[in-house]
């Protein structure tokens, strides 16, 4: 139990004194996971739209596959990518192993399925009558998609937040692809694993608290942005432009 109180005190101390090592590790975690989240969102939101708004053979099967991939263990993603980007692997020439860029790639691969699946669910949750109304008001299909995306923005935000959460909390990819190299690819989760292995439980708890603080800031910012869409700026499709 001592370790928990000690951990909380240590977390406070690290944050207040802006410990440079801690800042570097936290910043790298944020940089990698936020980049992966942004890239994954850029892929998953349009792709989710494409899948939702188009009827094609095998659509249901595709959705089942996407949902199955929610369960892929992070170590398996790490191992799979490691074999691809290892020097003796097919993508070895890219030199991505043990780099933050490689970790961004890995986390993106990890969270695209979960974002994609949840974006599709989010869009399915929008009442069909809204889409019919939009069409009857003369919306082009692009305008229709844009408007439905706006309607679904809270559910899409959940998808993005969940993706970010999975990215910043995972150890498997960060360890396999990043290698936990000090000052280079060490992020909060791999640092926690390391400190636990070295028996410094207080510091591990402290780093866990810092990880949650970083996540808190990101989630608040994302929430403010989503709810910050001023209603008056929403255009009625087919209405006067400008």
């Amino acid at each position: 139990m001592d370790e928990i109180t000690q951990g909380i005190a240590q977390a406070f101390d690290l944050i207040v004194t802006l410990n440079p090592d801690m800042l570097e590790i936290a910043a790298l975690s944020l940089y990698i996971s936020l980049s992966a989240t942004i890239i994954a969102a850029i892929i998953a939101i349009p792709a989710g739209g494409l899948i939702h708004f188009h009827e094609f053979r095998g659509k249901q099967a595709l959705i089942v596959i996407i949902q199955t991939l929610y369960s892929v263990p992070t170590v398996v993603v790490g191992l799979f990518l490691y074999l691809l980007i290892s020097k003796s692997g097919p993508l070895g020439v890219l030199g991505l192993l043990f780099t933050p860029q490689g970790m961004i790639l890995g986390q993106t691969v990890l969270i695209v399925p979960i974002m994609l699946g949840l974006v599709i669910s989010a869009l399915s949750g929008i009442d069909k009558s809204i889409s019919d109304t939009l069409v009857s008001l003369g919306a082009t299909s692009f305008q229709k998609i844009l408007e439905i995306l706006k309607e679904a923005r809270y559910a899409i935000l959940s998808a993005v937040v969940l993706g970010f959460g999975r990215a910043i909390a995972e150890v498997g990819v960060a360890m396999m692809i990043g290698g936990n190299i000090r000052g280079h690819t060490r992020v909060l989760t791999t640092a926690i694993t390391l400190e636990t292995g070295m028996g410094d439980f207080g510091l591990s708890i402290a780093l866990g608290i810092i990880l949650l603080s970083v996540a808190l800031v990101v989630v608040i910012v994302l929430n403010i942005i989503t709810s910050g869409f001023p209603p008056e700026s929403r255009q009625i499709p087919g209405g006067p432009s400008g």
Partner: protein
Amino acid sequence: MKRDVYGGLVSTMFVLLFITVCFAGCTGQAPATPGAAPTAAPFVANQQGVAVIKNASAATAATAVAPAGGAPAAAAQELVIATTTSLYDTKLLDMLQPMFESKYNVRLKITSQGTGKAIELAKKGDADILLVHSPSQELAFIKDGFGINRRSFASNSFIIVGPADDPAGIRGMTPEAAFTALYLKGMNKTAKVAFVSRGDGSGTHSAEKNIWSKAKYNYTTQIQKSGDWYVEAGKGMGETLQMADEKGAYTLTDEGTYLAYKKDLALVPVISQGASLLNIYSVMTVYNDKQPIEKITMANNFVNFLIDPATQAEIGKFGVDKYGKALFIPMSVTVPDAPAGNVGDHTSPATDVKPPSATATAAAAATAAVK
């Protein structure tokens, strides 16, 4: 008004991202960032933030053309060292790293993984130097032509730890006799007799298997799954110690990890002497036909650095301030008595740049097989 709030928040977000990228820049990995003062007007910061983000995502693509993976322009050579967690966790390498880096224009990237993973990394050419403590695996690695210039640089002793009241009564025995007693009492379901094994193919696990075989047991048929007394943790040393502590069981551990965990454990060292408890640390240069000669010679520099008398003296002092005793015995002080080959060469400088021709072909065949 609301629009302004929204704009402000978006700028804040970009500033946040910008700072993040700047931080990442400090690690020498992010693309060059424009030298914007962080105090710039939000709008300016906003624009630059956008630019930086574009750069950041472009960087992922850029690495496709630049195999250096965003290495700083100063072109300090980079060497990847694959090592095991138990060695890395002692922080010995943290002490040696700056000494070596300042001697040569080089950046060491040290990754600590399980012994099996570290050897796999080296076999696939993803590491330049291998630093482990598993003689049989090392000798196989060298024999297959994946490594050259194996040098042993230090040793210490594994210890058998257990509950202070020693329910199996093994204190003072040889490791083999102690393991035999544990086996017999465990199989007899003697109360409170249990053994927790790493069970993860690590260097410590191979040392344990070695003791079982010296005690004339077949590890896979007689020990594994032989009963509730034998627990295979499948975890790192620290977690295994904790598990043994919770269960009041015995386990085999390296001394460094035990000392680091000692304050949280009720376990005490029960046996710390015996030839089969010898733990030998060796270093070797990774070889494969794609490995550039500069990396091989720099890796050889590191091997020579470890067996250099000055470094050996530092290794001999390591741990005294933190644990009150040295964690390693450098080869310059004592060369342990061990079966042939277990202790590698520790005096002659590492000069080879390729394996003897017979094994070179084996390595070429092996790398071809990997492809």
